[in-house]
């Protein structure tokens, strides 16, 4: 290994990795147990400890191996799967079915997810009210708590939210890893602006109709969470759209292109998160002095955030979700996590350590609830 690369490698010794994991270990323990560990329930304790250890092992490995993306993806995908499971379980527990009725909408009983946020902005500004039939505070997934979490994560991580926070992104991230090589390679670069068009349309239609139109008509994740009971042509059309969008954008296209097509082409919140990349202090930087223009990073990027031109210019575009795939793919270690204002190739390790800590802490705690629920359900099957 040439000397320069050796100096830049992100691997740490076993002891050092343990040391770096210690703060995460303590914080996750306090946050997951609420500071008052209660081990009276056997299955709950097993689920809590398994999740806690699993999370910290992943974090340890990020330091020990110096790799980010694959380890992040494990947690990200598990989060998506367990969250869907938890949502479905919750819906079935309350309503004995995976569908919701118009009664649930009238009772404002719907769990809130962050994808609704783009549709709330204009009505909140003009009517001073919220148009989503959920609970403002309290209950399962309240509007207030979710908006606060998303706001904080978006300011801090920018579009990093889409690889370190969103409980849907793991679906297409997972499917985009199915094949070794993409079957479809040539895709026009302009499609990456599509989420802005979707954002424009859903923000306007929701504001004018005063109902969240994306949730009503377009959300592919309704197919894996809950959807409206089919009672007529309209609800049948909606169910058809949800399933087709999920099949197309979350399963088939990611498998064929190795790209996260739902997040890159459809999600209106992804468009807003793209803009939040302008606020976050964390970015991905390219060191042009080391880069040899092999463009392996461009092929690796699942978000259309890197083009050959970007690499030539030495900067990553605002579509970047800070997943770290390009960083791990670079044979020269020329790409790295950085901090705004700090030149590329300076404070490289410090920047990665601080970014990993912040982003991992966010997803670990956000995901732990649903992972524990699922592990507990499995443990209950056996004891």
């Amino acid at each position: 290994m040439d000397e320069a690369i050796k100096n830049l490698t992100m691997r740490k010794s076993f002891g050092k990795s343990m040391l770096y994991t210690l703060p995460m270990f303590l914080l996750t323990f306090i946050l997951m147990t609420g500071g008052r560990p209660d081990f009276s329930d056997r299955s709950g304790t097993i689920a809590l400890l398994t999740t806690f250890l699993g999370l910290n092992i992943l974090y340890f490995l990020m330091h020990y191996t110096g790799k980010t993306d694959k380890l992040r993806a494990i947690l990200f995908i598990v989060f998506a799967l367990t969250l869907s499971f938890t949502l479905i379980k919750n819906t079935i527990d309350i309503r004995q079915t995976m569908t919701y009725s118009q009664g649930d909408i009238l009772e404002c009983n719907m769990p809130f997810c962050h994808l609704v946020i783009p549709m709330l902005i204009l009505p909140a500004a003009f009517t001073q009210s919220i148009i989503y039939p959920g609970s403002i505070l309290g209950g399962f997934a309240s509007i207030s708590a979710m908006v606060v979490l998303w706001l904080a994560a978006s300011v801090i991580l920018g579009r990093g939210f889409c690889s370190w926070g969103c409980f849907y992104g793991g679906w297409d991230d997972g499917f985009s890893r199915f094949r070794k090589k993409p079957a479809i390679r040539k895709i026009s670069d302009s499609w990456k602006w599509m989420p802005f068009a979707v954002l424009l349309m859903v923000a306007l239609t929701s504001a004018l109709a005063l109902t969240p139109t994306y949730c009503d008509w377009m959300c592919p994740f309704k197919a894996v969470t809950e959807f409206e009971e089919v009672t007529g042509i309209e609800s049948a059309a909606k169910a058809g759209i949800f399933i087709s969008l999920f099949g197309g954008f979350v399963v088939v296209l990611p498998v064929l292109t190795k790209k996260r097509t739902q997040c890159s082409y459809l999600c209106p919140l992804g468009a807003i998160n793209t803009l939040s990349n302008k606020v976050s202090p964390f970015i991905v930087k390219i060191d042009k002095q080391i880069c040899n223009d092999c463009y392996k990073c461009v092929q690796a990027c699942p978000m259309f955030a890197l083009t050959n031109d970007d690499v030539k210019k030495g900067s990553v575009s605002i579509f970047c979700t800070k997943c770290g795939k390009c960083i791990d793919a670079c044979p020269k270690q020329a790409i790295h996590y950085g901090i705004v204002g700090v030149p590329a190739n300076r404070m490289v390790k410090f920047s990665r350590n601080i970014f990993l800590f912040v982003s991992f802490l966010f997803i670990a705690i956000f995901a732990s609830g649903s992972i524990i629920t699922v592990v507990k359900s499995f443990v209950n099957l056996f004891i």
Partner: protein
Amino acid sequence: MTAGLIWALCCLIVMIMLYFALGGLSEGFAKLPFMKLNPNTNGGELAQQVVMDNCTLMIRKPVFDGLLRERNKGFVQIEWKGDLPGKINDTIDYNMDSSPDFVIGIIVPENQVNLVALNPKVRDVGISTSTSYGWAARINIDK
């Protein structure tokens, strides 16, 4: 460079505090003036309440709210809370002018609804559905 580093460290501190403060932050956020449900969503304010044998009939204020101004078409939401009889047949005066506006009949087990408009402003049934507390219906009306 220093600004970037300071900003990054601030973010680190905020992230550590975030989950500890989440409850308080959410409560504070929920108090913001726009954090209340739109009448189109929650059915509007309660206007009248009629206690009947086994259940209570609630009539909400008509909702015409639009984005910038009131719409010409809206709805009135009525709810029956409690033990529902098999057949509901109620005469509703939603605008409280002491003259009935419509008669609504529901055969609960069959989810069949029948509306007789007595006021020309009453159009049709928008939603009629069972709920956890009984039954709810939205009747479309003109302003």
